[in-house]
């Protein structure tokens, strides 16, 4: 990095009032000696004024009022789904064991077993797909 480039980087600290006393004084002296850099400084100062005055519109207050309620609802829903899934899994195991110990027709037993096996396969397939998506390379699809 050449000296002027270094000076330009220092210029950012000067504009943002982030230089200490000695660095600030040395910067000002250098600026007096180099009109080209002084002109650049004026442009950057104007740019900073413009950038400082820019604001994007914020959501209405009612959006923020609902903000936490939405997060809370999502936390609750997630917990509800977990409990529901665990409960169903327990009930399914209980039903399966009960069914096989009962004196039902083999057709009913086979039908129930196939239904439960199908449901388990479906759940495991969705879970694996979800895990695969989570493990995807974060930079995949980004051209280098």
């Amino acid at each position, binding site marked *: 990095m050449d000296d002027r480039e270094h000076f330009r980087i220092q210029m950012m*600290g000067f504009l943002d009032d982030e230089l200490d006393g000695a660095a600030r004084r040395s910067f000002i002296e250098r600026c007096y000696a180099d009109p080209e850099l002084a002109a650049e400084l004026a442009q950057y100062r*104007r740019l900073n004024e*413009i950038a400082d005055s*820019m604001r994007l519109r914020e*959501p209405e207050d009612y959006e923020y009022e609902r903000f936490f309620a939405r997060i809370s609802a999502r936390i609750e829903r997630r917990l509800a789904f977990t409990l529901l899934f665990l409960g169903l899994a327990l009930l399914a195991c209980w039903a399966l064991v009960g069914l096989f110990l009962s004196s039902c027709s083999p057709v009913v037993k086979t039908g129930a077993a196939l239904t439960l096996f199908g449901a388990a396969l479906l759940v495991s397939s969705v879970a694996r797909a979800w895990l695969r998506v989570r493990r995807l390379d974060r930079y995949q699809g980004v051209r280098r």
Partner: protein
Amino acid sequence: MEAAESSDILIIREVQSGHRQAFESLVRKYMRRAHGIAMQFVQNSEDALDLSQDAFLKSFRAVDRFDTSQSFFPWFYKILRNTCLSFLKRRGLVKSFSLSAAGEGEPDYELVDESAPSPHAILAGGELREEFWKAFARLSLREREILALRHFQDMSYQQIAETLEIPIGTVMSRLYHARRRLRERLEAVL
């Protein structure tokens, strides 16, 4: 650690010890800032709201793993940033990445859609405002990020350095490259 940060840590400890409701005060404290940051990535208020909620949700789930010797906001910022980047990638809005002019090793991203935020997202103003947002939208994500933290979030170099986990020298250098590109694009109005 500053007073604001230590109060965050007290809240986090409360959440970690089972008082989950305490998390609400962290959300209320940072939700506007989180929305503002997400806006710089996605430039759409509805998406920014959704993504900032996602980030809070993720941080809530991960709160037990949070190291209370660290500050909360930089940790949360990383979650929010990754959430926004994942969203942009999933939607195919990230065009490419290039190594920054400053020669930093981490990738930088450019957006497919370089149009300015929709007019309703911009506070009323004249031509200058429109020109600014058009020029801003054409910057890389890293450039937008550093400018947004400095100008729209009013963060000091020290705060930016802590949030992005980079040295203060790198903050200055990134600001310089971002402002130089913005200046080139706004030359006519400066």
